[in-house]
């Protein structure tokens, strides 16, 4: 490979905290890696484990999940429910052989533009080091579906 590997990363974030934090990173003109695509949801409570599987199906080498810090959820409890779900799903993925390093979770508030930018950069770096998620790509190849755009 001549070109260095650039990972594809898909992020699922809540609109009230992390999405706003990402906006703040923008208004603060912070710079971060362009590898991440963000999907906006009302609350981390809405982020289903299915989203993670579909992101992997779309060829994501890494998935990010982020929302309000505990106690700060706009919907009071959504992130507490999400946290339990993640705990369980993470263990499940690990047991199946999907490395936990490829699915990262964070709390980023609307004020944490800097944390957002740093988080994106560090995760992009980490996933870049891990390399492409070849084992999952092989699953996708075996479906014999044509390569997407």
């Amino acid at each position, binding site marked *: 490979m001549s070109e260095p590997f650039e990972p594809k990363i898909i992020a699922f974030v809540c609109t009230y905290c992390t999405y706003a934090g990402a906006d703040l990173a923008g208004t603060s003109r912070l710079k971060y890696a362009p590898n991440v695509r963000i999907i906006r949801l009302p609350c981390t409570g809405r982020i289903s484990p299915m989203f993670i599987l*579909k992101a992997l199906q779309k060829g994501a080498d890494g998935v990010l999940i982020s929302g309000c810090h*505990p106690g700060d959820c706009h919907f009071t409890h959504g992130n507490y429910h999400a946290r339990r779900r*993640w705990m369980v799903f993470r263990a*499940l993925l690990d047991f199946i052989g999907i490395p936990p390093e490829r699915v990262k979770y*964070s*709390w980023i508030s609307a004020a944490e533009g800097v944390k957002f930018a740093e988080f994106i950069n560090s995760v992009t770096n980490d996933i870049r080091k891990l390399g492409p998620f070849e084992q999952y790509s092989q699953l*996708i190849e075996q479906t014999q579906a044509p390569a997407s755009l």
Partner: protein
Amino acid sequence: MSIEEQYRKRAMELLSGGAVKMVIGYGRGSNAERRRPVFISSPEEVNRLVLDEACIANLSGYLVNEGLLSDEKRVAVFLRPEGIRAINILAAESQLDAEQIVIFGFDVSGNEVKALKGIHVEEFEDVIGAIKEHAPEMGNEELLEKIEQMNPQERFAFWKEEFAKCIKCYACRQACPMCYCRRCIVDSNQPQWVNTSSHSLGNFEWNIVRAFHLSGRCVECGNCDRACPVNIPLRLINHRMAQEVLKSFDHFAGMSKTQEPVLASFKKDDSETFIL
């Protein structure tokens, strides 16, 4: 009197007195090793009931068959401790009224069948508590340990080989007392979250979703494992998830009929070491 005789007698009494409308138990199967579920609704038939160490299947799933309990009459059922836990979960998840269930409890250790005292699900809390403290062997510990020792790539490869066998017959789902949904997520096609084809991707997705939906709900009865016609060690995944909820949330599925579902509840101080 053997337990089999005692329980036949009890079934006879309950049926002839009208205390229950049906007894769900085990009968002789198509060969010497097999037992099959039987549904006894008249006292004359109680001699079809068999109880021995070959009675393994968890029969609790039949209780949620559509219409069975809607006349509010009682039904008796032969259950091992896992089956009793399943009743608690089904009651906690509003799938049945535990008052309607009369339990013929039993357990098997080695070749010995012993009766469990009690009739209603509340009376078995000690039995269930004891399993929480000392889980019985599931007989596949070595493989579990082997998998735990693998690195992620090896684990992925292991499951890929196992899941490659899956033919999406959904015997695991149909055999599971907890899979009572009228429409499974795999059959929900707007959108199609789970690929239904049994290529490797679809098989991964299905088995991940199945295990996730059973997290904190699986009683480890092994119905799925035994039902799988292609011998995927499904129970290992469920077992791992049961360990996880026990370790992380001190949740032991089916402790009581009022237990809150682990994923519909939370504690503010739940562990979050993995969240950055």
